[in-house]
């Protein structure tokens, strides 16, 4: 059995959304779409265990531009999303704070959407270090937090699996 779900990636400019997508999902379209129309769609296939047996889950990943000029388009792109990955850069506190606003946008466009937070670029932190503010916001939003590094391929697969489990449940 195959199930497809729409998933959106949200986060400020240069937090690493596209890097997360580029390395671990199937791409067909050029990244230039993000800067032209504000979005690019990619696909990530997973096998997700479920009580009735594993299912093939196809995540249609809508990588949304983080820049301001596409903020008006964002509501349209978020419509119908079953899940969302909110991405922040642990070295830039303002991107961590922006997670709250993105969560609100998601809720406004598509209520009840499953959300997972990706604290990206942990390769720039000392080993074992955590971002206290990201932890706090994740707890406040009730969303799981996964530390990732697109550069070192850390936590990315776990991030998509966490979201896959949530949207397929």
């Amino acid at each position, binding site marked *: 059995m195959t199930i*497809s779900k*729409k998933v959106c990636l949200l986060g400020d400019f240069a937090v690493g959304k596209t890097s997360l997508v580029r390395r671990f999902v199937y791409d067909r379209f050029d990244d230039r779409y993000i800067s032209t129309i504000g979005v690019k769609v*990619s696909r990530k296939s997973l096998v997700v265990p479920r009580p009735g047996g594993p299912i093939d889950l196809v995540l249609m990943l809508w990588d949304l531009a983080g820049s301001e000029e596409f903020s008006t388009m964002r509501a349209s792109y978020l419509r119908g999303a079953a899940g969302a990955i909110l991405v922040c850069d642990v070295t830039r506190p303002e991107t961590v704070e922006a997670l709250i606003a993105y969560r609100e946008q998601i809720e406004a466009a598509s209520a009840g959407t499953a959300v997972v937070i990706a604290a990206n670029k942990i390769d720039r932190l000392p080993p074992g270090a955590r971002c206290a503010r990201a932890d706090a916001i994740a707890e406040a939003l009730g969303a799981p937090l996964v530390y990732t590094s697109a550069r070192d391929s850390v936590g990315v697969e776990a991030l998509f699996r966490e979201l896959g489990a949530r949207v397929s449940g």
Partner: protein
Amino acid sequence: MSGTSATPDAMPDSETTQEGPCAPDELRALDELRMILLARDRASVVELKSALDALQGRLDDDEWLARAVAPILSEALRLKIRDARDEMIEALYPIIGQTVVRAVAEAVRDLARSVDAQMRATIGPRQLWRRLRARVRGVDSGALALRDALPFSVSQVFLIHQETGLLLRHVALGAADADSDLIGAMLTAIRDFTSDAFGRGSQEDLDEIQVGDRRILIEAAQTVYLAAVVEGVEPVGFRATLREAVIAIAQANAPALRAYDGGSAALDAAEPLMRTLLASVSGVDAPAPRLSRGQQWAAGTLLVAALVCCAATYGAGRLIWVATRPTPAMALTPTATASATPTAIPTAAPTTAPTATLAPTDTPPPAPQTSAPTSAPTSAPTSAPTAGPVTGAMTGNAFVHEGPSLTAPRTGLIVRLGQPVEIRAVSGDWAQVRWIVIGEGEQTGWVQLAWVATLHMVPDAIITPGAEP
């Protein structure tokens, strides 16, 4: 100064001037002076020579020269076209005009070939019916052929969930694209983008995208939309067909669409309808616009005229058939006048039995079959009443013989397939038949019985007893 300096510079040191020979010290002094005075000029000459050599080298390099001249040439051409357009057109026409003419001629030839192929292909009843319909709708055959020569085809149809952009179903003429789900999602994204960027209201959505020769036609219902990738000029009504299809799919699957969770099995039932959209569509087969009042009147008149023609043709055919059918002419007065008296003289007929059938009539008796008469007159008269004529029809073309045998001479006549005949007598495998030929009158002769079909049994009365094959 240069004149005075050039003269001594050109003279050999050993020569003397007109003023007289110079002392060696003077010459040396002059040399030094010359060096001092001409040093700058000499350096300039060397520099100029070097620059000239470099320039000469570049001029010999065609590629460099073209690059150097191109910007100037472009600008010069632009100015020239602006200032002397007619002159430029006149100058370029032999080149550009010929190219354009060749391209147009090739396109027209392709079109002509296509129309020819269409005309050759359109000879079946279906095509004739199409032509008739087209004519009734005011489309002449030339326009129809031209329209057929410009085919329209649908190569792919996407059924996409409006809200999520997820691909519900995809059908294609050839092999389906493995990334059709990504294409569907990006199509939705582009649609959302154009709607947000250019839509002036909530109902304004992207409904067509042109990609070279192909176009993507989009028709949306409340929950889903159809995107058809088409090539060529769509016939009138195709959009309506597309719209009806998407509405039908949305209505038929409303519960499944409301509860859509991304499952791949959803909307399986939509696929057959989508496949019907894939087939090539012809302009005349598509729904036509309503006829005008004049066209309706003309069509009605044409229909009535056609009915009248049919009735007249049927009546005329019936009259001709009645006039030419052999049955009335074969009324050989099969009277019931039984002849109880024996035949006084031997009949010339091969058998004596049928004598009663034609006697006593005003019609002349059949020509004597002298070649194969029975050897003896009938000893026993036919006592039974005269039977009615036995009629039949020829099941093939048969030579007519003068007697009931292959050895009997041929009369030179042939009874044709389907010819109604009257069987006058039977002898073994042979039947004496009588038939009417239009314009030639009544004919009689013997043919093999196998070529004559009858609906009734041949009565014994006309069978020659003892005649065995």
